[in-house]
């Protein structure tokens, strides 16, 4: 059996499905895709795409910190969003939140996301 650590914290929205917030394995931490839900209320934050994406990144950051990593150690990020017209805002906010050395990234348009979310982001990060 694996001795991997599973991480689920109060500082990120409670999972609404059969998954944990993060798993540590070897030198990496894997994070479940986060959407723009307020960790306290569990509801989507108001303010449209930009607010949702900032909150989603806040959630990823809180999880990474609890797992012993941080945004500046993200190796790979993956972003799904539903409206092509949000692309510029997505790139701008991402550029404000992630700094050198920037992670590899895959982003694409999804047909739909959980309960009407406009955007979600997951990542794999280093522990050291």
């Amino acid at each position, binding site marked *: *059996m*694996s001795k*991997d650590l*599973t991480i689920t914290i109060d500082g990120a929205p409670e999972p609404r*499905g*059969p*998954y*944990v*917030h*993060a*798993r540590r*394995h*070897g030198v990496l931490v*894997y*994070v*479940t*895709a986060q959407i723009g839900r307020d960790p306290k209320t569990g509801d989507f934050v108001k303010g449209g795409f930009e607010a949702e994406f900032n909150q989603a990144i806040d959630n990823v950051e809180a999880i990474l910190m609890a797992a012993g990593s941080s945004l500046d150690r993200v190796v790979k990020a*993956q972003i*799904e969003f539903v409206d092509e017209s949000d692309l510029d805002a997505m790139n701008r906010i991402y550029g404000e939140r992630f700094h050198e050395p920037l992670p590899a990234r895959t982003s694409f348009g*999804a*047909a*739909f*996301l*959980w309960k009407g979310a406009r955007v*979600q982001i*997951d990542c794999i990060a280093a522990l050291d």
Partner: protein
Amino acid sequence: MPSAHKGVVSRRGPQPTGSYPHAHIQGNMVWVTAQAGRDPSSGELVEGGMAGQMDRAISNLEAILEECGSSLDRVIRTQIMYTDRADLEAMDEVYARRFHAPLPVRTTWGVKFLAAEPGTELVRVQIDCVAAAG
């Protein structure tokens, strides 16, 4: 191919329909190709809509993982793509029945379509994973 890498095609999973193995092993990690709800012997999609397809897709993952010296309870991360938002609850119900603590992290999203062979029922879901081996 570097010696620390190995591609695996299992007789217990539906045979690949493109240029990919069922899994790629590197070090102590197994990277598994996305699986749909196809019967491993016939290659046909199973019946039962989302629930039937999801259950079979996870069974395919399980067979491939076991062939690679891993198992469902060593899965670290899954990705799920599905075509109909109305299938969410059925998908989660099957997933929760098949995966147990320590649960993997998960990324799930809706897609416009999934690859299907002509004349078969629509592929409603596929799932891939990364797991630890050994």
